[in-house]
């Protein structure tokens, strides 16, 4: 097609052409109602139909009138009732013989001009196509169509004024930036590295979605926005996060000062402040405290189901609580990891003891979701039999977050001792959370750890994208982060220094905070 557009379309744009085109879209392309769908596919012995309008009353089947094919890029003539396939050039033949220049693709609704020998992009026609598709989808309950981003006038202007473009290639290092340590602030740096490499959070901030309505300029979300700009600006010198630190000190006073802090504590505090500031900005809509739609909640919040079962009447009382992270116990000297529950021998866990003997993340999760006997000292009033009875409690995942943060409790604080647990816990690059779901509980209650039956179900699968590590002792140490860039490149972020890492480096590391991202997202 020439850049000026197709001049042959004007021949079609006469009389009632808009209505005619709509009818064609409704009947043959997007067939929203059951009735039109039937027409589209039922083979009907039709007589001669003189013009396009009558097709609604005497519909023919959608198949090539020359060869009977249903597929092969079926097109319909826009000037008369004729269906022909594109692949075998039957529609071409028709166009040539009858001099009918325009035809419509029945699968995608594109309009082809046989004179231009190309699909044409006519504004009016495209508008009709769009409207009809939206209508049809609504009728069928498919929902809003995913459509490509189209720049608005203002955005076009901005694009014109800023002609410099950055291209993301497979090996580019955009997004990697060191952070200066401002005095024992590696606890913050390591979390910032993990957050800035959280795919969905990055998409949110880089697409400029935060609309701040806070009066003062102390919004942590705005600072995160700024931080993402810094990270993805392409600058190679380390960034100095003094503004961020100042805001953290202002909003989370318990982290203020130059002492060493716990990275996990910082993560939770940061998410909390971000969540509060998002709330401020996404307005009065968020008046339901249990259901917040801010980006932090959308990404990080999951639902944890707690089932307390009375040992006498076996009544179950269930509560569901939101969570941002999952803190997992590790086998330590003072806390034997197995047996799972009092009474079981614990020597073999469902027959799959690990040849290497190493504890796995899955072990920790299994322990986390096991039924726990609350003991005689912790009798709870049962809502079923209204008496104080011993009970068991079990946690399962009711709703999975998009990003799952696992906190390995490496810092042991008990009455007798305080120490760091350096036990190696192996964690996978890909994690399936299906066994730990509330919906999978039945099978687990029978003492069976089952592989998900449906291996095609990817809904609960996660990929590792960041690992925070702690080196040193309980009193003093240092935090570093491994982050994933592109699909499978790993980098170690040690304050201002960033080095390439192998997958083995990552998987062999001790692991303190593990960040997993959902592989498949539901479309809302």
């Amino acid at each position, binding site marked *: 097609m020439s850049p000026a557009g197709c001049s042959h379309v004007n021949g079609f744009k006469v009389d009632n052409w808009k209505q005619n085109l709509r009818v064609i879209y409704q009947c043959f392309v*997007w*067939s929203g109602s*059951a009735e039109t*769908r*039937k027409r*589209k*596919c*039922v*083979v009907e012995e039709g007589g001669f139909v003189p013009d396009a309008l009558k097709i609604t009353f005497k519909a023919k*089947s*959608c*198949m090539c*009138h*020359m*060869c*009977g094919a*249903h*597929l092969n890029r079926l097109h319909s003539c826009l000037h008369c009732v004729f269906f022909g396939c594109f692949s075998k050039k039957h529609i071409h033949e028709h166009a040539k013989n009858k001099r009918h220049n325009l035809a419509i693709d029945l*699968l995608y609704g594109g309009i*082809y001009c046989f004179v231009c*020998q*190309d*699909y044409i992009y006519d504004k009016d026609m495209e508008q009709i196509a769009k409207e009809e598709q939206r209508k*049809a*989808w609504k009728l*069928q309950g*498919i929902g809003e*169509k*995913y459509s490509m981003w189209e720049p608005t006038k203002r955005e076009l202007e901005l694009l014109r004024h800023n002609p410099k473009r950055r291209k993301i290639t497979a090996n580019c290092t955009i997004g990697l930036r060191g952070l200066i340590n401002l005095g024992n602030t590696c606890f913050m740096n390591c979390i910032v590295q993990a957050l800035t490499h959280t795919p969905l959070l990055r998409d949110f901030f880089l697409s400029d979605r935060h609309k701040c309505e806070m009066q003062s300029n102390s919004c942590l979300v705005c600072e995160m926005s700024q931080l993402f700009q810094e990270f993805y600006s392409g600058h190679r010198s380390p960034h100095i996060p003094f503004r961020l630190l100042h805001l953290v000190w202002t909003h989370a006073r318990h982290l203020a000062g130059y002492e060493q802090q716990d990275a996990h504590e910082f993560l939770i505090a940061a998410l909390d402040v971000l969540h509060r500031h998002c709330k401020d900005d996404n307005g009065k809509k968020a008046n339901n405290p249990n259901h917040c739609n801010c980006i932090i909640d959308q990404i990080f919040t999951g639902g944890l189901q707690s089932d307390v079962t009375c040992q006498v009447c076996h009544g179950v009382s269930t509560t569901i609580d939101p969570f941002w992270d999952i803190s997992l116990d590790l086998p330590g000297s003072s806390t034997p990891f197995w047996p799972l529950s009092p009474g079981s021998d614990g020597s073999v866990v469902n027959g799959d003891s690990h040849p290497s003997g190493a504890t796995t993340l899955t072990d920790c999760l299994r322990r986390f979701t096991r039924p726990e006997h609350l003991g005689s000292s912790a009798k709870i009033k049962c809502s079923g039999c209204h008496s104080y009875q011993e009970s068991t409690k079990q946690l399962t995942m009711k709703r999975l977050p998009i990003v799952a943060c696992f906190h390995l409790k490496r810092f042991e604080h008990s009455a007798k001792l305080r120490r760091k647990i350096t036990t190696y816990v192996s964690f996978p690059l890909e994690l399936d959370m299906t066994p730990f779901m509330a919906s999978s509980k039945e099978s687990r209650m029978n003492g069976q750890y089952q592989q998900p039956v449906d291996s*095609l179900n*990817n809904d609960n699968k996660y990929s590792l994208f960041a690992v925070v590590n702690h080196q040193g002792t309980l009193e003093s140490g240092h935090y570093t982060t491994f982050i994933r860039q592109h699909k499978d490149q790993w980098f170690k972020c040690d304050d201002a220094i960033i080095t390439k890492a192998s997958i083995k480096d990552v998987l062999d590391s001790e692991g303190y905070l593990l960040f997993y991202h959902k592989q*498949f*997202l539901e*479309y809302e």
Partner: protein
Amino acid sequence: MRREMCFINMSKESQMRAAINQKLIEMGERERLKELLRAKLIECGWRDQLKALCKEVIKEKGIENVTVEDLVAGVTPKGRALVPDSVKKELLQRIRAFLAQHST
């Protein structure tokens, strides 16, 4: 050629295809499958790969001369090969499930 003739010439397999196609359209499942496929292909990066392929073809032919047919011819074989097996499997499973549910 009259349409009745076409049916006589159709092989068993293509008759089956036609019947399945008909059922999918009739129930509106075909539109849903199309959207699912579109979403999955975007998700796995296929769409971006295809875009890059198209750009190559356009560069080769020159923006003034390239036609849709050139593009189709240029990217179809590679495009087909690039569709991940997992996506094909998922679609196949969806179609199977649908047919099992509606085979009466």
